[in-house]
């Protein structure tokens, strides 16, 4: 029985979850192995409903935990087909063991991560704690700031991950509730156009090719483990960025929508810049425009690709900037924030004279308001005027009680 195509309007009103579910349908995923968790559940519910209504052909395996969900994805992917799932927060944490196994086995699985805080205390709202937990797992990580981007980046993720020169899994992140449950206009592709962008899945070392049996997931000790890990990392750092650029360029040609590894906003002549991720990028862009009316030359740098970290593009974007604030939406728990460290690392051997300060914000879904960002840009301008960092190295935005800071 052939599946039916779905007629979409040019612009649909979708939330981030449904946008991702539609992308999975249009990519015609062969197997989704999944376990529900707030706020990502509607993505896999969407796929199973599309299956029930014959808008997709495949197998939906509703397993008994997120660990089993990714285990099933690994088995299915090694068998030789297109595989995806979705999760958040605690489910992501439960998956962590298998995330490393999936990437180490070079299986191009797509995981939609709807970002949510990690317990304790238990919290269902959006922050980036789960996203940060995945950053050493060997996956490619894309960050969507809106439902449109959650839709688009799924296609891009499949195209990059399944490339035979890459063969690495990829996550598409979106902010819990702020993106996943907020409906916006989404420009769509028709089913044929969308599918043609990802193309047919081309199996490699597939277990179901019985003429060529394969062994997946071997043991290596000190004699080979290092070579496997180093080559995987090297592929991420050297091969993947070019493939991402290629996918971004093809996608722009197809849809007119342009993506960059580092998204710059008003950065050409900026004095002060905020570096952030997720929905905060849009808020920061609005505030940057307003700051310019007040005479502060403000810009925004949004990270579109978290892993592999775009060192050169970050360096380029922040060249000549006088003061930079990094906004980490995850508790660093005993260090400077991840963004602070990565930006510092990217700029350290450059000619930058930028003053760098770190901020933690929005934990457990606490709002980042425009007022917060106005204050922040004002502090950055204060640093520029003083010629030194006048604020603590690490501050917390919007936390109640006594002011918390470090250094």
């Amino acid at each position: 029985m052939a599946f039916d195509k779905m007629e979409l309007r040019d612009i649909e009103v979708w939330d981030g979850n449904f946008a991702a579910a539609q992308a999975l349908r249009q990519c015609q995923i062969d197997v989704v192995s999944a376990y529900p968790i707030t706020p990502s559940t509607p993505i896999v519910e969407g796929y199973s409903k599309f299956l029930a209504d014959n808008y997709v052909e495949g197998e939906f395996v509703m397993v008994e935990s997120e660990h089993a969900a990714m285990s099933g994805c690994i088995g299915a992917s090694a068998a030789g087909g297109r595989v995806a799932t979705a999760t958040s927060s605690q489910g992501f944490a439960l998956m962590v063991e298998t995330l490393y196994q999936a990437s180490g086995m070079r299986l191009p699985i797509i995981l939609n991560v709807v970002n949510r805080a990690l317990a304790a205390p238990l919290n269902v709202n959006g922050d980036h704690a789960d996203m940060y937990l995945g950053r050493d797992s060997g996956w490619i990580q894309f960050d969507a700031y809106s439902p449109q981007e959650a839709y688009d980046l799924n296609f891009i993720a499949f195209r990059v991950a399944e490339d035979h020169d890459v063969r690495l899994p990829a996550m598409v992140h979106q902010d819990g509730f702020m993106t996943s449950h907020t409906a916006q206009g989404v420009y769509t592709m028709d089913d044929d156009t969308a599918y043609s962008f990802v193309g047919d899945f081309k199996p490699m070392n597939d277990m179901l090719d019985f003429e060529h049996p394969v062994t997946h997931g071997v043991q290596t000790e000190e004699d080979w483990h290092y070579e496997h890990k180093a080559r995987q990392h090297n592929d991420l750092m050297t091969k993947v960025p070019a493939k991402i650029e290629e996918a971004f360029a093809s996608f722009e040609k197809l849809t007119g929508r342009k993506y960059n590894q580092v998204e710059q906003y008003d950065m050409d002549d900026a004095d002060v810049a905020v570096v952030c991720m997720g929905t905060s990028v849009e808020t920061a862009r609005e505030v940057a425009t307003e700051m310019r009316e007040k005479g502060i030359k403000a810009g925004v740098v949004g990270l579109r690709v978290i892993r592999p970290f775009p060192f050169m593009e970050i360096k380029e974007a922040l060249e000549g900037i006088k003061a930079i604030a990094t906004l980490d939406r995850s508790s660093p728990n005993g260090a400077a924030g991840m963004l602070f460290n990565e930006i510092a690392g990217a700029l350290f051997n450059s000619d930058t004279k930028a003053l760098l300060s770190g901020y933690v914000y929005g934990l457990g879904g606490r709002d980042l308001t425009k007022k917060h960002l106005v204050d922040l840009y004002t502090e950055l301008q204060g640093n520029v005027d003083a010629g030194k960092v006048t604020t603590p190295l690490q501050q917390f935005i919007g936390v109640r009680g006594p002011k918390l800071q470090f250094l």
Partner: protein
Amino acid sequence: MSEMKKIKNLKEFSTSADRFEGANLLCPGCAHSIIVREVLNATNDDLVLAASTGCLEVCTAVYPYTSWDASWIHIGFENGSTAVAGAEAMYKALKTKGRLKQPDRNPKFVAFGGDGASYDIGFQWISGCMERGHNMMYVVLDNEVYANTGGQRSSSTPIGANATTSPAGRVSYGETKNKKDIVAIMGAHNIPYAAQVAPNKWKDMVKKIQHGMEVDGPVFINAVSPCTTEWKFDPKDTMHLTDLATDTLVFPLYEIIDGHELNITYRPKNVIPVEEYLAAQGRFRHLFKDEYKYLIKEWQERVDANWAYLNRREEARV
């Protein structure tokens, strides 16, 4: 249609083509390789195999070598079952979509795990696979101990066994908990087929494996696998130990069809006292001290009670 091997005698069986090579790192006398060969040799069909982390896995797929002449996957300790279930789901998807490279084949999906991977850490994953109805077989290589990590107790370790985490000592007789009845638990998932097998009774085993491969749906097999290293017996005595296990009724051989039809498939002509089984293994040596001899009596009573229970179930068809 499934293609099962027609095997008349042991010689024919032992000389049939192997998809599990003798070139592996398992201990001399390890029953795992015997069981695996008996499972794989039951069919001529293509195989998609998985192993959970454990002795079998670390001894058969050390890069750049493999002992497997069939598609094989290992992910982790707890998820060998789900690895095969995922592959089986992909097979179904590609079959529906007409994308199988060899559409005329009839592959069998089989996962192996030790008792640690099956009774303990992977228990939930197996339960999920059985409940969801994947067309797959899960085989436990039950040596009643975490052998790969050096002899810690699992929930399959029987009372009185000396294990590194339940050691016998001046005031301890070793493991104090009873072995988990995993075949009954898996049978209670109302799967088409669950069975206990032993490598010495190879005809019984091949019959069960072939039946399991022919039914549509999940199949659970628990195979007794005497461990020369942890049970502490001479490697040449593996089959002798297996004979003792089945003929003392410590490991009774039976099957459960559709969760309720229990059949005992082997009734020893001469039932051997359990004491002989215990005496043949170093892990039970301390039970023969005067103060622990009551445990040997209890062992016999437990085995008798279990045998009576199985007989009652068989008679009552429950």
